């Protein structure tokens, strides 16, 4: 029963997964371009923003049309309304990646090869993982995975605290590099925001399963 509707819901999951993967790719790419000081990766990340905007619109349109045609209730209503909220978070993550890319492009074009602290790489990896897992939790209706994602946020926060400490020391010791260090702090803050959005997504995944809003 409700074959068409079910097929559309599966399609919606696929689209969200694809968008999640794209955001994770964008974060990876921009981090790589930052550490290697290359402009191409940064430019590509900025370009990905358009793709992600398109993905966001597609998912929103599908949700609207499902609401209109199927008048979902219960689990179906939660699945679709969660998707509409999640897609906004995903799009914000894309924005953050693009913001990082802009800074990284400036650095690359200045010709410097900055000394990127390990914490930034770790934060980027964690945040990317959180995004993917949060989406997976939604698709699989897996509350435990979603809660694990929420817990990972503390790890990212800790990394950010450490990063800040390192960079503050750097500014203190090498005043001529303070400009770059401030850039890196801002990037760290962006990554920390990415993790926060991943937490939001995980919360919507939990809502989808239990009906409870955190």
């Amino acid at each position, binding site marked *: *029963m*409700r074959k068409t509707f079910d097929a559309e819901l599966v399609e919606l999951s696929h689209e969200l997964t694809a968008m999640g993967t794209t955001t994770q790719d964008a974060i990876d790419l921009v981090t790589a371009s930052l550490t290697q000081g290359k402009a191409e990766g940064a430019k590509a990340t900025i370009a990905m923003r358009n793709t992600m905007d398109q993905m966001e619109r597609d998912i929103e349109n599908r949700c609207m049309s499902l609401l209109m045609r199927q*008048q*979902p*209730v*219960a*689990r179906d*209503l939660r699945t679709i309304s969660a998707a509409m909220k999640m897609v906004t978070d995903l799009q914000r993550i894309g924005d953050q990646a693009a913001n990082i890319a802009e800074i990284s492009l400036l650095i690359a074009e200045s010709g410097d090869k900055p000394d990127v602290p390990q914490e930034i790489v770790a934060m980027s990896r964690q945040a990317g993982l959180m995004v993917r897992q949060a989406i997976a939790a939604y698709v699989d209706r897996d509350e435990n995975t979603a809660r694990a994602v929420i817990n990972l946020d503390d790890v990212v926060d800790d990394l950010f605290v450490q990063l800040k400490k390192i960079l503050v020391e750097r500014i203190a010791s090498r005043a001529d590099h303070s400009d770059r260090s401030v850039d890196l702090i801002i990037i760290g803050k962006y990554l920390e925001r990415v993790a926060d959005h991943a937490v939001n997504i995980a919360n919507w995944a939990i809502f989808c399963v*239990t009906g409870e809003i955190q």
Partner: protein
Amino acid sequence: MNAILKTENLNLWYGQNHALKDINLEMPQNQVTALIGPSGCGKSTFLKTLDRMNDLVPTVKIEGKVLYRDQNIFDPQVDVTWLRRHVGMVFQKPNPFPMSIYDNIAYGPRTHGIRNKKQLDEIVEKSLRGAAIWDEVKDRLKKSALSLSGGQQQRICIARALAVEPDVLLMDEATSALDPISTSKIEDLIAELKKSYTIVIVTHNMQQATRVSDRCAFFLHGELVEADDTEKLFSVPKDKRTEDYITGRFG
């Protein structure tokens, strides 16, 4: 929550068929309670039991209680006429009597002994206004009720039920035979009526249940599976069977 009507361990058999199984349900005052469920789940039987309309069926056997204002309606000293005066019923198909609009509305009051012409006039007008159809028929009260459209006929039936000044109004799929415009008129009317009456409806239309009801009860195979605030039931149902039914994945 003040339940004006409630059932306690209500069981009903049609011959060998156990049609209602241990139903415990409270229907709060001035709220709309919607009964939903697939065909043959017992929701209409349940509704009819509240008005003792099942008494017409010879093979019926009933156990348990239906309490109207704490009075068990199956007590031997309870007069069915008394019950039906306080618990009115509107049926699935509009069933105005083949008489004038006025006589239709006056039927109930006359049955209960009101003969005074002026008093009857007042009741007729008040009831027709209550059912939001006064303006449409005030100039042709002497015309046959059968000359009206289906939607108007159904509102005449509602007015006819209101004319005996009941407490509770039972509606058995009262809009299923009507077009969307008449349906929405009656839905608006239900929202208006619940200020003064307690309403119990049976509906096959989920959207209708979500639009008009405050509480919702899901029946399946003669059992009451789940009863809750409508918003809760339609967003986070507790029972898997409820979820499957309301999302259309039943069976």
